């Protein structure tokens, strides 16, 4: 049951983000949905490194041999967050630029080119 929920939660977050993007009528909303989809990756990565009853992987004042969660997944998630922040900032800058030019953020009204 636990392992089913462990997979179901990130899957749900990812699909919810995708659904939001596919039905979005506003580019800012779309970027936020992209961030939602991305947070599914944080959840999944943190989950795979979790160990029951273990402490944080900081070995200052704990006894040797204490169970700790996998420190690698923290590093992965941090890297992922940094990358996500960069992409989000860049996309938001694009959205601002588009709004200044076209006075709209509706993707249906913003066709680059067709056919």
């Amino acid at each position, binding site marked *: 049951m636990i392992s089913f929920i462990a997979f179901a939660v*990130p899957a749900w977050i*990812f699909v919810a983000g*995708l659904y939001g*993007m*596919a*039905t*979005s009528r506003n*580019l800012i909303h*779309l*970027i936020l949905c*992209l961030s939602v*989809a*991305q947070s*599914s*990756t944080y959840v*999944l*990565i943190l*989950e*795979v*490194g979790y160990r029951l009853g273990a402490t944080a992987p900081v070995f200052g004042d704990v006894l040797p041999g204490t169970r700790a969660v*996998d420190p*690698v*997944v923290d590093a*992965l998630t941090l*890297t*992922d967050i940094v*990358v996500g922040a*960069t*992409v989000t900032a*860049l*996309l938001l800058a*694009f*959205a601002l*630029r*588009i709004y200044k*030019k*076209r006075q709209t953020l509706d*993707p*249906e009204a*913003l*066709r*680059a*080119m*067709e*056919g």
Partner: protein
Amino acid sequence: MTPEALAPLAFSVPLAVAALGAAIGPFVPRRVLDALAIATGLFCTAACVLLARAAAHGTVVHWFGGWTPRHGIALGIAFAVDPIGAALAAFTAFLTTVALLFTWTYYDESGPPFPVLMLTFMAALIGFFLTGDLFNLFVFFELMGVAAYALTAYRSEDDSAVLGAFAFGVVNSIGAFLILLGIALVYGRTGALNMAQLSHALGAHADALAILAFAFIAAGLLVKAALAPFHFWLADAHAVAPTPLCVLFSGIMVQAGLYAVARVYWSVFSGALAEHDHVLRTVLIAFGLVTAFAGGIMAFGQRHFKRLLAFSTIAHTGILVCAFALLTARGVAGMVVYVLGHGLTKGGLFLCSGILLNRLGTVDVDVLRGKLRTKPWGSVAIFLGALALAGTPPFGTFLGSSLIAHAADEIGLGWLPWVLLVAAALTGGAVLNALGRMAFGWGPPPDPRAKTPAHESPEASAGGDRGFPLMMYACSAFLIVCACAIGLVPGAASAALGAGERFVDRAGQLAIVLKEMPGAALAMPPAEPIATSLASGFLAGALALAFAAIALFAHRLPSGAGAMRALESALVPLRRIHDGVVTDYVAWLAAGTAALGTALAAWMR
């Protein structure tokens, strides 16, 4: 300097120079920055060529920070350089150098960001080709992506460029998430990120989780590779991106996505998925053929010459996916030679379109109708490029498709090369069709009711009075000549076949990376040369000419015009789904991922 020490320099030096350029950019003349960037490009080309030579004697492994594996357990991050990775990295650096040379006279004004971003983009691609670590691959994927989105929107006063970059960024970011989800799954199973360690831990049996992880990683990477139905971003981004950048986009970035699929398959999953290779082959060939024909058909009837070339890239991606899908060493060898031949050709053609944009202010085929009469050299270059796209001897694409045909014959898919030949001929025909209109004013007159094309902002002020653009012509001619030369180099085919054998040698890679066995154990196996069939190559060229002739002259035949109209209306649905709406692209991406994942998971059970 040992090759092990050279490997990290190939990507860290351009990053350092990019940072330096960003810092000093506002204070130094533009030419200083351009020259610095070109020198860095040359350095990286040389470094990667040296790496490729060293890798031919055994995979070059570099552990960052000296974190070498202990007792066969790898904790550190490694570069594992094989001949194919190094050759593609060298090709990246080479194309970047040519693109930077082209910009020397192309832009009247180009701010410091341009060379800085180009170097960042190149560094990310080089790292992408050299790394032996799965998460590192993802990081380089994202770094490459961010630099590419920013470069696509470089002319930010043009709103269609920003829109193209936006769609590009959104679709590729979703691809990156898919890769990361796959990495998380496989890390949860094995606790490893090093590719050799992963393949060791996965063993020789595939369970549902391994299949799912591979499906996610492959789908994410194939977004970058522009496999249908993930390909929509590509045409929009190429049409609006700065032309020198298109050389890199079409020449190597798209193919890098496919390279990574091949790398991940052969270095990590080939043991676990070996019993299911026929399923993977069938599914990928199906997707590849759809991509090849969708791209080839869409390339016809494009008014925008750069967008036409972008659809041709999509068609060639389909061909390359089919080559990988053979899942043999020879298939990989054919794929790599085809990547080189196609990249040089497409680069030359994009530079030609850049010359048009620079001199005539537009790449709209209908506006340029008959206007190329005054540009005979440009017409000749485009003509040769079109024949090369079709796979006519002696170009590199011909050698590549011969290798692919040979590999397909070996596993009993003798029909596949002939189908791919038609798809390649379609793209060549599409370029010839556009050339016939631009150079001679052939073809039916443009429909006056047709919508005016998307607003085209000239990338540099058009002016025919600035004399012969020698540097631009030289760059474009150089690439076309290289595309021809690569097909003529003696020994190119056997070197590629040997490198292909090394690429698929999972056990050998594992031994070298984890146990640091001497590289000599993996000397390149000698490969016997294969017979190339000149006839099929010339058939492809003839077919391309025939397709172009039909498109240009069928309307003069009795009932020809009606047939052409019927054909066009049959293609309306296909054209209509390329609608430029980013939300639709996301929906297609979701549907495609679901289809790919379901097909793999259902059949592999």
